């Protein structure tokens, strides 16, 4: 076996990043997908998890994942890594993914690389750092490489695999049950695409003055995800789970539309590597225009509805 990949899932559906990790893993060798699930939850995920280039699937069942979170996930992966000695463990980059990777790296004495955007068959990775101003290539020198990869870094081929399926159960030692999760309020999933998976992101900032309707209207016409600046999430105008930036999500879509966002360095840290950037801002001096391919100096409440009207009328 060569690459282990952790397949994220929520509410019975498998994240798109699973197929992406599999496509990267395939360059290294055989791919084993890992699903960490509550007892009985695994069977329902097998079909969705098989829409990826995987050779085998390991379903690890435990009630500890829900009750004890990251500690349990990291311990389960640690024992799998020790048992199977893969060349690499690939995990999707997220707050959770990076922390799981960190713990497994310590426990298995393996080198770790976070937020890679590419990895080759020799486990050499590419990262984009300092808001995309540098591209760095690195490699891990230990027998196992622990690498987290940003979602949407590759176009995964659409395939259907028939992996061998193995089920194992897992349980934490009592001494490892220090953390107890008592309540979970998952991010509200609207009908729109997920931010890190979307090809287009339309974001609103303080300039929306709390009215995200024109932002959402444009997003829906473009099939886009909606993002927000910290000013907008702090004001309670949009859920914090939609924050883009240093302390929010990092997105790298084909098109990023910033509406009423000044472009502070902390915001740019999360969107600067977008392929095309469009900005609408009343202030011609706003720093967002420094990174925009196309900028409109104007009122978003005039510009956005006009753009939406035109798009709605466009022949499809």
């Amino acid at each position, binding site marked *: 076996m060569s690459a282990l990949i952790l397949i994220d899932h929520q509410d019975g559906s498998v994240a798109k990043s699973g197929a992406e990790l599999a496509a990267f893993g395939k360059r290294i060798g055989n791919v084993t997908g890992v699903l960490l699930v509550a007892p009985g939850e695994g069977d329902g995920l097998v079909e969705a998890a098989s829409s990826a280039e995987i050779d085998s699937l390991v379903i690890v069942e435990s009630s500890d994942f829900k009750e004890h979170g990251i500690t349990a996930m990291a311990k389960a992966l640690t024992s799998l890594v020790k048992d199977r000695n893969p060349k690499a463990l690939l995990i999707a980059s*997220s707050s959770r993914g990076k922390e799981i990777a*960190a713990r497994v790296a310590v426990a298995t004495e393996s080198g770790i690389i976070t937020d890679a955007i590419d990895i080759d068959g020799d486990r050499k990775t590419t990262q984009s750092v300092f808001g995309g101003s540098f591209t*760095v290539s690195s490699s891990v020198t230990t027998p196992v490489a622990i690498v987290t990869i940003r979602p949407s870094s590759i176009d995964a081929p659409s395939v259907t695999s028939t992996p061998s399926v193995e089920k194992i159960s897992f349980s934490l030692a009592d001494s490892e049950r220090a*953390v*107890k999760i008592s309540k979970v309020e998952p991010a509200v999933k609207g009908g729109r695409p997920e931010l890190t998976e979307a090809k287009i992101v339309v974001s609103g900032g303080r300039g929306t003055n709390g009215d995200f309707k024109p932002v959402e209207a444009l997003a829906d016409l473009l099939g886009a995800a909606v993002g927000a600046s910290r000013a907008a999430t702090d004001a309670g105008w949009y859920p914090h789970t939609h924050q883009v930036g240093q302390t929010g999500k990092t997105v790298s879509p084909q098109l990023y539309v910033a509406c009423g966002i000044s472009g502070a*360095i902390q915001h740019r840290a999360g969107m600067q590597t977008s392929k095309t950037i469009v900005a609408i801002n009343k202030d011609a001096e706003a720093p967002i225009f420094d990174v925009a*391919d*196309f900028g409109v100096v104007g009122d978003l409440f005039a*510009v956005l509805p006009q753009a939406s009207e035109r798009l709605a009328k466009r022949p499809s």
Partner: protein
Amino acid sequence: MKIAVCVKQVPDSWAEKKMVDGRLDRESVDAVLNDLDEYAIEEVLRLVEPLNEAAGSDAHTVTLLSMGPDRASEAIRKGLSMGAHDAILVSDPALAGSDALATSKVLAKVIADGGFDLVFCGTESTDARMSVIPAMLAERLGWAHLTFAGAVRVDLDGKKVEIDRMTEFGVETMSASLPAVVSVIEKINEPRYPSFKGIMAAKKKTIDTRSLASVGIESSAVGASASWSRVEGAVARPPRDKGVKVEDSGDGGEKLVDFLMEKRLV
């Protein structure tokens, strides 16, 4: 109780960054206290200050802990002027080029030997942006892992801590008995500016600077040669092509759509 706050000196986020031989050139930019660590200091001060005031003594102490070059003491001074009691700086030429695994090894050793049972961190250093040190500390110490806190509730007498973990996945409430590693997000509070009195007081506070030998770690276990990942190359991205900027004179939305169609984005 002794509480430690892990703080890092980082290059100013506003400064233009240069890379030399695959490493960030730290000499060429201003160095500051990682701003995300200020939230951790502020949260701990808000926790202990009222208790110390009520007790009329410094029953609970706040120690800043940092690994970095000697000049990191400038950033530490800022934390001391906010109100932390003292600081430990692990500084040793052999540490140069350490990766997160080595850094966490050093910090964990100092924490374990220092009689702390609560450690606070920021969620991320603005230079490395890995968000891994708090998780690595929890793993190494075998302590409760309570990270990405948007709210922290500590019961120092009952030795319990509860947090609301706020991430892109939503909010999770979780609790544990001490010892614990807690990291906080930037939504948790508004860090104070050091007062004149605080700045004067900080001048008299001690920064205990330790070598690797005094921490009790072999120099062969850290530094560039012991790092398990290696940077092989770094290239500067060519500057973005200068974009087009138009004034909206009643047709800004139309022009925007023209641009999107021209670029085949819609």
